[in-house]
């Protein structure tokens, strides 16, 4: 199997789907001539031409609406946001139109659009360019929210998202584009709504997604040295949330820590904790803890930035607390 980057895996997914289905097109800022702000769309303009790889003005609300309108009449747009920070300007179209057309029309209108781009923080980009918005979108009935952590999942999930009849918010990890992994060639689909156990373990469950999967895996490695065997569950899809996989894991380990990049208030972890306490309260040996980004706008200074992030030491500390090894 070929080892390729997360970036190239996304590129493969888009290219394959565009070859298969003439109604699939890509639009966004710098996706064509410039080959993508993060080079995800490299080579696509050459292969598919400017009608299917559409460079837009810097007009997020407008081009998101163009994507939704095109989807309402049968095209399958992939709307790229240069980053999800800028998608705030477009959130009206995602929330008020894309997510609601099917319901408001009594089932007459589908919006098979994918909204994608990098989310979360990178390095020293400061407050306006370092934000995790998955909980915002996951809050909205009518949307699906997908966040791959590995190159293989990036490909498999993006292909599924493009084929999905519902609007999909597809948040890539800005820091993951260069990461490499084995990716199956050709037809390879990862189902939306199914979490993945990235490391099996027996003592505690670490529930994570996107960039925090590597954080959890690193923490698990270090915990193993202390004789603690952590299971790492990668949610992969935030909505619909895979209750089954999460509950099966926690029922086995009886302890859980939820790790996410975003802010704690009403975050993804809050939802996960709710499901666990509601469904398997009696299985728990300790309260579920959360490790999140610090509840502040992202600082620029690199030491402060580092201190704000969910990292392996914070995860390890939380694990020790749920195991009553530390207070």
């Amino acid at each position: 199997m070929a080892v390729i980057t997360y970036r190239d895996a996304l590129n493969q997914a888009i290219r394959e789907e565009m070859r298969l289905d003439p109604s699939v097109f890509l639009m966004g800022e710098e996706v064509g001539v410039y080959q993508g702000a993060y080079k995800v769309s490299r080579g696509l303009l050459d292969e598919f031409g400017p009608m299917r790889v559409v460079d837009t003005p810097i007009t997020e609300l407008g081009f998101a609406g163009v994507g939704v309108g095109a989807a309402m009449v049968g095209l399958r747009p992939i709307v790229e946001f240069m980053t999800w920070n800028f998608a705030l300007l477009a959130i009206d179209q995602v929330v008020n139109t894309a997510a609601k057309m099917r319901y408001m029309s009594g089932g007459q209108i589908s919006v098979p659009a994918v909204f994608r781009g990098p989310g979360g923080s990178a390095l020293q980009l400061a407050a306006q360019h370092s934000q995790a918005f998955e909980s915002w979108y996951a809050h909205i009935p009518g949307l699906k929210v997908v966040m791959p952590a590995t190159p293989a999942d990036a490909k498999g999930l993006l292909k599924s998202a493009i084929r999905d009849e519902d609007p999909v918010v597809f948040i890539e990890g800005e820091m993951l584009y260069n990461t490499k992994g084995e990716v199956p060639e050709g037809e390879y689909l990862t189902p939306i709504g199914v979490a993945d156990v990235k490391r099996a373990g027996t003592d505690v469950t670490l529930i994570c997604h996107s960039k925090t999967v590597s954080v959890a895996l690193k923490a698990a490695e270090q915990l193993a040295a202390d004789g603690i065997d952590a299971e790492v569950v990668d949610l992969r899809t935030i909505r619909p949330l895979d209750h089954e996989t999460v509950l099966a894991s926690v029922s086995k380990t009886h302890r859980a820590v939820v790790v996410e990049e975003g802010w704690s208030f009403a975050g993804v972890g809050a939802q996960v904790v709710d499901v666990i306490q509601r469904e398997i309260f009696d299985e728990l040996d300790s309260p579920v803890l959360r490790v999140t980004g610090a509840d502040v706008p992202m600082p620029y200074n690199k030491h402060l930035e580092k201190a704000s992030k969910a990292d392996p030491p914070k995860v390890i500390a939380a694990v020790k607390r749920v195991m009553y090894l530390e207070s």
Partner: protein
Amino acid sequence: MTAKADRKRGSPAAAGAAAPNPTSDLNADTQRSWLRQMLLIRRFEEKAGEAYSLGKIGGFCHLYIGQEAVAVGTLAAMRGDDYITASYREHGHALARGMSARAAMAELFGKAAGCSHGKGGSMHLIDASLGFLGGHGIVGGHIPLTTGMAFAIKYREEDRVAVCYFGEAAVNNGAFHEALNMAALWKLPAIYICENNRYGMGTALERASAIYDISERALSYDMDREVVDGQDVLVVYQAMQRAVKRARENKHPTLLEIRTYRFMGHSMSDPIHGHYRTREEVEEHRKRDPILVWSEKLKADGIIDERGIKSLDADVISEVEDAYRFADAAADPEPGELWTDVYASGGTA
């Protein structure tokens, strides 16, 4: 500053009703059918207002009374496979497009037999089979959708056009500018119809817009534009024909500013004249009631007489009464419908 100060808002009369307008290319049936459609919308809206007062219609309900010629004239120039989006003030457009009064009224009543199965209501009348794609509640939000539909038309190399109706207050919203810029940039077959009824709720155009001639906004995008008298259905039709031709044949978008007036309050919860406009102003505009204007013209041309008009009116009144009875008797959606139509799979997530 002086240029702006001199640029008074145009009255509908100033907008081009002066010259006699030849109707020779229109047969008498068509001309009478426009009168019937305008009467149908008028009677439908009056009935909706009555039903609202009785508590049979809930939420917001924005009536179209006074603006009927805009929907009827523009839709008459369109083809059955064109795409349409509108704001929440869209009952008239839906009816003129061919939605049955029953399906529209039942939707206002929130019934399962409504066009959106009771899930949309007054602001979200939708019938995909008619290319009537909403009924949207966020001011300006649907304008980019139309650009997207026009994009899809060009993408598939079709000769449909995509048409959008919105109020004059929406042109101050970023979505309007973003949508028009892309339509002009990409040469898309879109027509943007600004129904300038002078007010966004209680805010007069002059209190919200730095320029008073809305069509001038098109200049920023090198887009074709026209100012149209919205009280004369024939004038509206002819302007729309030109815009449709440009869009269908040359893929040139147009901004049509159609000057009209709403005779009722902003919505059913707003009185006809409040702090923002006088009774005299409303009365003055009522003199150019589009139904009156068109009736007079048809009578003068010998196409219909007073008796004919009465009989058309009686006909639409019975259609509306039937729709009312139908909607009133229709069933609510099943309780389980709460959970359907969220996702394609049917379930929730």
